[in-house]
């Protein structure tokens, strides 16, 4: 996405549209991404509770999924998973 130039931006860095933080995809910062081994996942939702973003989505079955638009790759989910179903992999 082409970023706006100084003439196009509202003065004083004012945000004129409420709720626009949704457009700010903090997942851009990530250097590592979580990868789930679905066969190990018990659906305990510890990861869902611990995720600070929250970028973990509950599925219909046991397994969870990750919202990579917002996941910053902090790795808390991988540390907290009691069955080690989540591993962090280098982003390329």
């Amino acid at each position: 996405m082409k970023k706006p130039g100084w003439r196009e931006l509202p003065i004083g860095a004012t945000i004129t549209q409420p709720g626009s933080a949704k457009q700010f995809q903090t997942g851009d910062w990530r250097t590592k991404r979580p990868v789930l081994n679905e066969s190990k996942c018990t659906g305990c939702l510890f990861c869902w509770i611990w995720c600070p973003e929250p970028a973990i989505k509950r599925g219909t079955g046991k397994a969870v999924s990750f919202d990579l638009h917002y996941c910053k790759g902090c790795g808390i989910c991988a540390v907290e998973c009691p069955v080690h179903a989540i591993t962090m992999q280098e982003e390329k």
Partner: protein
Amino acid sequence: MLQKVQLIPMSGSEAVAKSVMQSNVDFVSAYPITPQTIIVERISDLVGEGGTKTCFVNVESEHSAISACVGASLAGARSFTATSSQGLALMHEVLYLTSGLRVPLVMAVANRALSAPISIHGDHSDMMGSRDSGWIQYYVENAQEAYDWVMQAFRIAEDDRVMLPFTVNMDGYVITHSVEPISLIDQAAVDKFVPPRIAKTRLDANNPMTFGTLTLPDYYTEFKRQQEEAMRNTPAVFDEVTSEFSKLIGREYKQLVPFELDGAKVIVVSLGSASGTIRYVARGLRKKGLPVGALRVGLFRPFPTKQFAKLVENADVIVVLERAMSLGSRVGPLGSEIVNSLYDSPSRPRILDFIAGLGGRDLAPETIEKLFRNGVDAASKPSGLEMDFLGVRE
């Protein structure tokens, strides 16, 4: 239409307070500090007397005073504060915030020295310490100018092309405490010149916005570029507003105020109240046949660089009266601007930068005459730059 002249004896501080009350100001928050205290006291008195819509908020520090004004201004209120010296220093971080948020706040600064050693007396150290904070800076010469400038400052600050905060600088004691005959302007004329503020963007529950946001490295520079554009737009708006004021009220203000520059080979450049004494001395020396003139800098930020170079193009020597220091720099803050202004100039006059009048030391005609005499003596020497103290005891 010129107003009927009604002269009232007032100190500079009282004149500022009166101008604030007349300028449809919605919000004032300030903390008393010598020599600005009387401005705050008089505003408080006038609000206390009633019959005004101005809201006055007492706070516990200058940092809080200016912060309250920023909040009020973002909510759409025309806001005013005043301070001096250590108070301005305490406001320092919020000064940058005010200009960065593009808040058109007006502040009177009763210019005073900075500690240490402690000094309650006048010089320009306080404002020069904050000169790069993104505020428009005007230095008045007397109480009448202080009165006239509060209302003009609001017009310039709130202009869509500008939207920057404005300091009206007045020398501590010499202007704040001297009583002068002040020509007050009819309220009807003031209302016409500076009607109540209608802010285009403001805090509004029905139209929510976020002010004071965070930017990352990909946006910060763009907002600084916007501020620079606003500074570049300011001189034209300054001329429009002062011209309108002049037509309505009959008093005319300039960015730079020349005196006897025709044929002047030695020009003394100054800010603030000493400029009157400088003109008085220049007049006397002219009568004796010395080719001297004077130039008062009114608008210090944005500095009228090109205008300055043009006005002094025929001078051999420029003598700068420097009432602040930039320790470790080759010249003081005013001298720096002058060197800067003359870089592109084909004529390179000799520049003598004299530190004088620090911490309230009197700038009597005899002292000012020494400035001119030094300049005249240097006229035959080649161009160059020198900085020295005037009147320091060895």
